[in-house]
């Protein structure tokens, strides 16, 4: 369609918390309870081996997941090398490595179900 007026409709950037699917959020909260302890200090991301070279940001990934923004989180997950350096730094004792693995597990199981 030709756009006569120079306007287009863009989707909202805001997190639609009411609509977002929080199945992964609930699954992670249950399987990795320590993930609830994050205070967003960014210590994990500062030393992250993957984040040094790519736009991977573990703090952001888990925050997105907690808000039900799972699509964004899924795209990022593959970049983690599971080195566990984030765990050594975390002042709250979040089991970051387990959290990533469980997020991957959740995606795998759900895809199987969908197939």
């Amino acid at each position, binding site marked *: 369609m030709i756009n006569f007026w120079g306007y287009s409709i863009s989707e909202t950037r805001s997190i639609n918390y009411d609509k977002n699917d929080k199945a992964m959020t609930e699954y992670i909260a249950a399987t990795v309870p320590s993930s609830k302890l994050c*205070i*967003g*200090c*960014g*210590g*994990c*991301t*500062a*030393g*992250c081996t993957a*984040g*040094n070279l790519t736009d991977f*940001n573990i*703090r*952001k990934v888990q925050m997105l997941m907690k808000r039900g923004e799972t699509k964004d989180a899924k795209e990022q997950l593959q970049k983690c090398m599971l080195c566990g350096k984030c765990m050594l*730094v*975390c*002042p*709250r*004792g979040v089991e970051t490595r387990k959290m990533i693995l469980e997020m991957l597990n959740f995606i795998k199981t759900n895809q199987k179900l969908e197939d």
Partner: protein
Amino acid sequence: MAKVIIIGGGPAGCEAAHQLANQGIEVELVEKSNETGGNLNNWYQLFPDRKYAKDLNAILKGHLEHPNIRLHLGMEPKKIEKSKTGKFNVPLTDGSLLEGDSLLVATGFKIFDARRKEEYGYGIYENVITSVELENMFYNHAITTAGGNTPKRVGIIHCVGSRDEKVCNYHCSKLCCITGVKQAIEIRELLPEAEIFCFYMDMRMFGPGYEEMYREAQEKYNIKFIRGRLSEAAENMQKQLQIKVEDTLVGKPLRMTLDMMILLVGMESSEGTRQTAGELGLNLAPNGFIQPQDPHYRNNFTNVEGVFVAGCGSAPMNLTDTLADARSAASCITAYVKNHKI
């Protein structure tokens, strides 16, 4: 006349002694070092009014020249016992024996040993210092690197030894945030050209005038605040520090070279606090500080009758709260000795 033994001659012990003495109670004040004032002796200026620590110290010290107060400097209790009649017997290291009707624990806090946070490099890299050492530099009106140069970029690291389960401290030391703001301003006054950064997780401006001071630090003193916890520091050939943090508000890892790094070391319960608690059977909170009977209306009472607590023995406190806590403890003790018809 009723008699009270106070263990610890820091601000809490001194203030409580003065208040009790004014109520006609005899006070035996025991201090392990050769002067009173405790940790206040290591400070140059105080937040939020930039009062000289030595001026406050002089006031507290002056109050001790009261006929009801006996000062025992350079002495420690060999042991602390409560007799069956409810009296307290405290033999001191010089062989004298104190007897009291009530006992006030004012044994305070100790500074977190920054060496325990090895990845920050204190004791390894020469230009990493603690907030306490910085106070000493303020005292001498000179901030220089270990090599004698004027630092061009200074980083202040919040929450060192606080809010960190890796060093077994869950608690917030409460004062470091405002100390960081105060010290950043003091650095600016001595180093007008330097870039000054504070790396914080949360800015906890809990007291009157604190938030205003934070605002002033940004507005008037051009202090920059970056929200991110230091992950690690390394030293380069020029003895500068290369730090790694995440700038969490930008959402990207950040590298920065600093000429000097200041660690805002937190507060832990002192050896004296733990030892006194051990001997008297006082309950400790999970953070190692003495557990008061109730956080609101019995915050100076311990689980042992006749034993009271004041100041940072029970929790990290600023000086305003410490002095108020000491006065509150003094009024509780006055009521206690009156009710027991001592």
